[in-house]
Each structure stands twice: as structure tokens, then as C-alpha cells.
């Protein structure tokens, strides 16, 4: 028990000492005295200030070099002017003031604000002319810090909002698609607002320029399918059926989906970035002011380019994928080239191609429309461009796979 009391006493004592060291917890005059003692001990050349009550004024002596980047700027205690009698001005003595920059202004601004709270006049005319001028430019009332936005946890509302937003987006994309289609029809009869140059450059970017990457990916996918299939089929001595496995998988699913995913990452992201940059530069606004419809001038060529090249890339992907499969079978299995060719032809009725063809047309239109929409909806800063591009890629890939699932169900129902 005595030990406990002892420790309590020491703690209380410690706390008392600590309080005594903090001038803000004492009356203003004590604070001023204490600070005076504190600042007088500092290094030569360091910014110093000194508050001294005189007969009918309070004198603040400033000395040393006040350079912001040296980080030695003293803070002005908010209650240091509490004991200054009302009506008596605070004046400055700057004879020992060395070099100074905004650090001094910052200090004086603090002083001026606390003087305002203590209803004390500050005579800034006693400051150097330019410091006085700079100080006059500053507002007297500090800004209210903006409160952080309230953060509620409301899962039901969030889900509801998400659903509404999604439905709204679906509506917007459909509307945009309709407008673009109308623009396309107008272009057919020669009254459109689409420039052939734009269409051609978009076609080039979405078509020939993509051949290499689409080829590489589909070749590897075909090869992987052949690898996986050969392991099982070899057990049944049915090596030759690797050809039909690769052919059907590529034509029905893999080529269309892989090509669409590549194009969503490659071209969709590029569209979103391009349109959101135009948005940031007010180029979209300029188009609207001229009455040039964004839907047919910007969106139509982009969507047309993807919708037109995607089926062609799909066919190309099928061919390359089967080549990949053949490559693996030829090297690893006992399959003759003619046998592989024959088996592939046997396994593939033409309507399989029609189905894949329609799918990739839909994928192309979907990727084109959504990425343009995301670009148009983006904000106006550099970061927003990046966000829009990322979002376009994510929405494109997820959307393509979701659409493919829907197609699979449809195919199952109608029995293709």
C-alpha cells in the first residue's frame, strides 16, 4: 500500500511538471515570460521572437533568419496576446531581422489571427513595407477545414443504388447504340456525319494492327487444347480425335471469346482513353457546340470498326488455333497431316461457324459501345483517363464472358 501511494505521488508530480512546461496552460503573461526564456536559448541565426509589454504598447521583436525551408519557424501560441490590454497596439521591432521569406509572413499571419481573437490591434505599419503588403493580401479569418464526407454503412441502399445505376447505364448504352445505328443508316444514304478517314484509321487499329497478338494467343490456345486433349485421348488410342476437339472448341468458344477479350483490352481501353482525354480537353463540348453528333462522329466509326473486324479476327483466330493444335499433334502424336485435316473437316458443320460469327459480332459491338460510353462518362482529370481505360477493360472482359454464357444457354435451348 505505501508503495502504491508513493508511485501515485510521483506520477502526479510528473504530470504537474509537464503542465508547468507548457506555457499555453498558464496565464498569458507567464506564458510570455516563459517563452521569452525559451527563445533566448536558441542557436545563432535561428528565427526568434520576443514579446515585451511596454508602457502603452506591446512590442514584438523579431530577429534572426526566417527561412521556411529550414523548418525552424516558431509557432505563435494562440493565447499569447490574451493579457494585452484592449486598445493598446502590438508593434514590431525589426532591427535585428535577417533574411526572411514566407516563413515570417506565416508567423505574422498567425499572430494577426490570434490578435483578432484577443481583440487587439496589430500595427503592421511598423513591419517592413513589403511584409506589410504581403500580410494585407491574406484573409483575416482562417478557412474552415472542410469536414470529411459522412460515411454510412447501408448495404441495402448500396445494392439498390448499384442496381439503379446499372439499369441506367444499360439504358444509356442502348440509347447510344440506337443513335449510332441511326447515324450509320444516315451514312449509308450519304447524309451521315461519319468521316471515312476516321472509320479507316479505326479499322486499321482494330484489324490489321491486332493480327499478331490475336494470332499468337489463339495459336497457343489451340496448342494447349491439343496438349490437354491428347493426354486423355491417347489412353483410348483415339489420338485423331484431338483434331475434332481442337476444331470444335476453337470455333464454338475459344476463338470468339479470346479474340473479344484481347480486343477489349487493346482497343476498348484505347477508345475509353481517347474519348475521356477529348472530354478533358473540352473537345467533346466543342463538337456539341458545332452540332456535330458525338454518336455518329465519334462512336459510330469506333463501334463499326470493332463490329466489322471482330468476326474476321474470329475466323482468323479459328484457323490459327487449329494450326496450333495441328502443330502439337504432329509433333507429339501419331497423326498424319492429311488425317488431321480430314478429321477437322468431318467434325465441323458450317453452322458452327455461323454461331461463332454472330457471337463475335455481338462481342465487338458490345466492347465498342461500352468503352465509348465509359470514355464519355469519365471525369476531366488525368487520373480519370486512367480510371476510364481500366474500367473499359474490366467491363469489356466481364461483359464478354457473361454474354458468352448467355449464348451458351441459347445454343443449348435451340440445340445448335
Amino acid at each position, binding site marked *: 500500500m505505501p508503495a502504491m501511494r508513493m508511485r501515485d505521488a510521483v506520477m502526479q508530480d510528473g504530470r504537474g511538471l509537464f503542465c508547468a512546461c507548457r506555457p499555453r496552460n498558464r496565464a498569458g503573461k507567464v506564458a510570455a515570460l516563459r517563452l521569452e526564456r525559451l527563445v533566448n536559448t536558441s542557436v545563432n541565426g535561428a528565427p526568434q521572437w520576443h514579446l515585451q509589454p511596454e508602457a502603452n504598447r506591446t512590442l514584438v521583436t523579431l530577429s534572426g533568419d526566417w*527561412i521556411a525551408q529550414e523548418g525552424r519557424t516558431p509557432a505563435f501560441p494562440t493565447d499569447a496576446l490574451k493579457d494585452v490590454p484592449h486598445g493598446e497596439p502590438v508593434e514590431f521591432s525589426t532591427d535585428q531581422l535577417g533574411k526572411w521569406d*514566407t*516563413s515570417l*509572413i506565416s508567423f505574422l499571419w498567425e499572430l494577426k489571427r490570434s490578435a483578432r481573437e484577443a481583440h487587439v490591434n496589430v500595427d503592421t505599419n511598423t513591419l517592413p513595407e513589403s511584409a506589410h*503588403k*504581403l500580410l494585407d493580401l491574406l*484573409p483575416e479569418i482562417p*478557412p474552415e477545414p472542410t469536414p470529411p464526407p459522412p460515411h454510412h454503412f447501408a448495404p441495402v441502399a448500396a445494392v439498390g443504388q448499384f442496381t439503379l445505376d446499372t439499369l441506367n447505364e444499360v439504358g444509356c448504352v442502348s440509347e447510344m447504340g440506337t443513335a449510332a445505328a441511326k447515324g450509320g443508316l444516315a451514312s449509308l444514304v450519304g447524309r451521315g456525319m461519319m468521316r471515312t478517314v476516321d472509320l479507316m484509321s479505326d479499322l486499321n487499329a482494330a484489324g490489321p494492327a491486332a493480327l499478331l497478338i490475336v494470332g499468337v494467343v489463339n495459336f497457343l490456345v489451340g496448342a494447349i487444347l491439343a496438349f490437354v486433349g491428347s493426354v486423355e485421348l491417347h489412353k483410348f488410342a483415339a489420338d485423331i480425335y484431338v483434331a475434332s476437339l481442337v476444331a470444335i472448341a476453337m470455333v464454338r468458344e475459344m476463338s470468339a471469346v479470346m479474340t473479344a477479350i484481347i480486343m477489349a483490352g487493346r482497343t476498348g481501353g484505347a477508345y475509353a482513353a481517347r474519348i475521356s482525354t477529348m472530354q*478533358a480537353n473540352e473537345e467533346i463540348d466543342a463538337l456539341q457546340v458545332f452540332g456535330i453528333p458525338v454518336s455518329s462522329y465519334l462512336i459510330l466509326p469506333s463501334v463499326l470498326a470493332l463490329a466489322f473486324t471482330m468476326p474476321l479476327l474470329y475466323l482468323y483466330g479459328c484457323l490459327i488455333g487449329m494450326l496450333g493444335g495441328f502443330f502439337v499433334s504432329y509433333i507429339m502424336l501419331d497423326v498424319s497431316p492429311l488425317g488431321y485435316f480430314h478429321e477437322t473437316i468431318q467434325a465441323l458443320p458450317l453452322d458452327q461457324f455461323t454461331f461463332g460469327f454472330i457471337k463475335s459480332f455481338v462481342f465487338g459491338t458490345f466492347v465498342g459501345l461500352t468503352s465509348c460510353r465509359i470514355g464519355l462518362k469519365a471525369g476531366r*482529370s488525368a487520373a480519370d483517363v486512367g480510371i476510364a481505360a481500366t474500367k473499359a477493360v474490366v467491363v469489356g472482359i466481364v461483359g464478354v464472358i457473361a454474354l458468352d454464357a448467355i449464348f451458351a444457354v441459347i445454343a443449348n435451348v435451340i440445340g445448335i
Partner: protein
Amino acid sequence: MNETNTQMPSTDDRPVMISVDDVTLAFGSKVIQHDVSFRVKRGSIFAVMGGSGCGKSTLLKSMIGLLRPTHGTYLVEKDNYWAGDDASRVRIGRRFGVLFQSGALWSSMTVGENVALPMQMFTKLEPDVIRQLVELKLGLVGMLHAIDQYPSELSGGMRKRAGLARAMSLDPDILFFDEPSAGLDPITSARLDELILNLRDGLGATIIIVSHELSSLFHIADDGIFLDAEQKTAIAHGSPTWLRDHCTDPMVHAFMHREQLDSSGSAGNG
């Protein structure tokens, strides 16, 4: 053309802060300006004048380190800017503050963060000290209310003022302003002029301004150079008021009096 009347007699004995000697600027083989020479005195406000497209901004670019001159020397006090390596250029560049034509604020950051970033990168100041200095600098340009706003939410004039606050963020002793008052209303523009004068007087900064805003130049600049697009060099040296009142060159005269040139069509009043 009489040589004596294109050169203001100098009575200024302040030390030289910046000296540019026979600088030639070119993009590839296309020469923009050749053999440009001038001195900027410490604490002066130096105007780079000239018609649109004469290479004012290109000269500024080479002075802030974005474009290497093909010929000539550029000294900042005793340091030869382009002769050193990248590290020495960065060291000299720390003395520069640049206000770009359209503000060039980093758009993914708030105005306050824009001003704070150089301080966070180059000083060891505490976050609350930085916050205080940011408030001060934005307060000086009258933008304190927009501290938490993003550049995309600001008007052109506000962006420019925020850009000025950012240029001052490290208390540079040489400030470069590219068209500071273009696109500002007269009151804001006058306030900016006053601010520039106060910065010069208060902080002792040397200021180089590229501008063709005559009223503002007459008010603040105390020295300058006039670049011509056709001769591709400096055709007159002197403060804007001196050039207006004493320069005999017809091009400079037309520019300073907002007149059209009699014979050759392009008066640079754009």
C-alpha cells in the same frame, strides 16, 4: 535603324542574376531565335516581349531547362546552366519557380496538394508546417477557399492563381511567368500585378515575365527585351515604358502603341 535608340541606357547597378549570351534556339534545323543576349538584374522584373509566335515561350522554355539551346551560354549567377550535368541542372532548377501558361496543375490532386507536393518532396518540414505554408501561399493569391478543390473544378483565372501559389511553394528566388495575366479579368489581373510587385519587394525574387499584356507590363516591368519573329532575334532592349517612349524601331513602336504596322502586315498584338 539607329542602334542607340533600341537600347535603354542602363543606370541599374544591382548585381546580375541571369545572363544570356548569344543564345540560339532551334527545333531541328528550324531556327526560332538566334544570338539573343541580355542580363537580368537581381530583384528586377524582366519582360520578354514580342508578337505571337516570335519565340518568347521557347526562350522561356530554354531558361527553365526544358529546351537546350543549340548555341550560347546561360548563366544563373555564376552557374553555367547548360554546361553541367543533370544533377547540377536540378540543383540550379531548385531556385526556379515557374507559372505555366494554363497553370499546369496536376489534375489528380487538390489545389492544396499541388502546392504541398514540392515541399513534401524537397524539404523535411512537418506536415502541419507544410499545411500552414500552403494556406499562406494560397492566401497570398486569394485562393484559400479553393484549397480542397480539384483543378478541373476551377476557372481559368483560378487555375492560374493556384499555379502561381505552386510556383512560390519552395520560395524560389527566380520566378518565371508565362503569360501571367492572359485570360484574367482586369481586377484579378491588377491584383496579380500588385502581388508580383510585392513578391519582388518582399521576397527579393527576380522575376522574368513572358507577356504581351501591355498595361500590366508598363506597370510592373523595369527591364525587358523585344524579340522579333522576322529577324529572329532581339531587336530592342529596355523597360516597356522606355521602349514605348523612346524606341525608334517601327515594329516595337507599333507593338507598344497598339498600332498596325504600315508596310509588313503582321503587328504582334495578339
